[in-house]
């Protein structure tokens, strides 16, 4: 297996008012291609920062970030934007769908950045909605969908452009247990059947059980690692 993600000696500081907060210091992490990794840890431990660095949303202050064969720490902002569109699908805790757009229009958003024709985009959107079992809700707006359905739309949006990696930030944090399990089941399916590399930040040990490997982030470093694979 090849490494989909490698973080080497990564440090990251944030400035909050007059304070300089070191969120990550000398963090090392490697994620194999096709792996389902759960990043766990207490609030403020740096989990989301790790996810942002892997997703090319942020730059490290020091260290190397290599994802899908590209050194992200060397890419400029504009290059990172293009890279994200090609390689990463994001799933957020609060779904972050466009409230005025229907489910299918929401799913179509990443495809607007491609050269696909309207009919090709429509076809891909239908496939993505099929995967998450929401074809019959394509024309509904987010406000007409339940939390679980909205998160499924968000997953469809994340996979529609066929990214290399899925990054999930507390994807079940806003859902009840039953719905959370449905969502985690879909993520597991995408990982096992389609070979997507999934990196999921979660507080929930039950959600983390769906991952093939779990790592603890604490005080800006990896502190513990367990695997089921």
């Amino acid at each position, binding site marked *: 297996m090849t490494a989909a993600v490698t973080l080497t000696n990564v440090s990251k500081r944030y400035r909050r008012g007059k304070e300089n907060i070191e969120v990550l210091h000398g963090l090392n992490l490697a994620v194999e291609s096709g792996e389902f990794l759960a990043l766990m840890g207490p609030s403020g431990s740096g989990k989301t920062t790790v996810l942002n660095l892997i997703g090319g*949303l942020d730059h490290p202050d020091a260290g190397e970030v290599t994802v899908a064969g590209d050194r992200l720490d060397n890419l400029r*902002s504009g290059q990172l934007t293009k890279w994200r569109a090609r390689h990463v699908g*994001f799933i957020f805790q609060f779904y972050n769908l*466009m409230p*005025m*757009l229907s489910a299918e229009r929401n799913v179509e*958003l*990443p495809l*607007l*950045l491609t050269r696909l024709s309207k009919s090709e985009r429509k076809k891909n959107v239908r496939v993505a909605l099929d995967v998450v079992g929401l074809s019959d809700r394509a024309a509904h707006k987010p406000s007409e969908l339940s939390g679980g359905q909205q998160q499924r739309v968000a997953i469809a949006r994340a996979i529609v452009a066929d990214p290399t990696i899925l990054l999930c930030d507390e994807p079940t944090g806003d859902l009840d247990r039953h719905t959370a399990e449905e969502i985690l089941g879909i993520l597991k399916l995408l990982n096992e059947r389609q070979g997507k590399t999934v990196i999921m930040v979660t507080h929930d040990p039950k959600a983390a059980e769906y991952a093939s490997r779990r790592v603890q982030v604490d005080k800006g470093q990896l502190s513990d690692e367990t695997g089921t694979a």
Partner: protein
Amino acid sequence: MAKYIPLVWAGLWRKPARTIFTFCSIAVAFVLFGIMSGVDAGFAHILEVSRADRLFTDPRFGAPMPISFGERIARVPGVTAVAPRWGMVTYYRDPKNGMGVIGTDERFYATRPELSISKQQLETLRHTRTGAAVGVFLAKKYGWKVGDKVPLQSNTVTREGSRAWTFDIVAIVEDVDNPGLEGRFVANYEYLDEERVANKGMADRFILRIDQPNRAAQISREIDKLFANSASPTRTQSEKSQRESGVQAIGDVSFFTKSVIGAVLFMLLVLTGNTMMQSVRERIPEFAVLKTLGFSDKGVLGLVLAESVVLCALAALLGLTVAKAAIPLLQASFPDLPKFIDMPWAAILTGFGVALLVAFASGLVPALRVKRLNVVDALAGR
């Protein structure tokens, strides 16, 4: 680009009430913009079509002038035509349908070449004592046609002690400078003069043509000098200078209209800018998500500007269309005035240019804010 339209449209309808109110405000502002531009263009048109080679000799102190003044004016070097005029206030059927009747003769048309009347019609007018040539506007308004007998009521009493004057329409006249707007009712001076009781043999104005417009001031002085010591001193000036001083008497119309337009644009800028700023502020997380998905900084900047442009352009389209439709109605409300309001296509294009300018100016600050948006902070709600 078309694929982004649903996204732009959805952004606009995020808060429908706010969008509708802003849209209506911009549309109303552009109605005002259109009408003010129309007044500005109309007054410019009045001055543009006014002639420096046409002079008016009027009584200096109000007392009417003897008709014999015309012969002396005609002898002044440079004068090519002189027509006497007597104006009579009348109305047709109802006092609300007021109109002025001009008593003159065929020389009137030599001083006003922009009025289209044939030699045959002139001949008929000359030989029909009660004949009248009416403007197309009046003919259309009252449904008159050649051969109609038109009774008018006037304050001027006839020899029989009546206030009713009857005219036979012999021609319908068009003004090539103001198509469709010619509203004069021209009758024979002889008829009016013979029938009236007072002011016999008098004129209230002489209309002149001169051969060299650049000599207008000199000829005017020479004419006024002729009658300086008479019982009816005169005041002669060109149509152009008379209209210019008339327009100035109203005030600096151009300054007034431009001030109103300026105020309207400033208001629009603030209004649209505020709407766009508010709209963008509320959607910061949504723009952050778009950037996360791979929309570039320039892409989201373009989306915000496109929203602003669509809002302003559609509202301007509605506003300018309403203004364009309202202008003929406004003009028709003042049939006795020359074309004082006009909205050429150039003014509509200027309106669109202004709408785009307002859209860019008001959308730029929020668009730049979105462009510079830090995705990590925005997603974290900071």
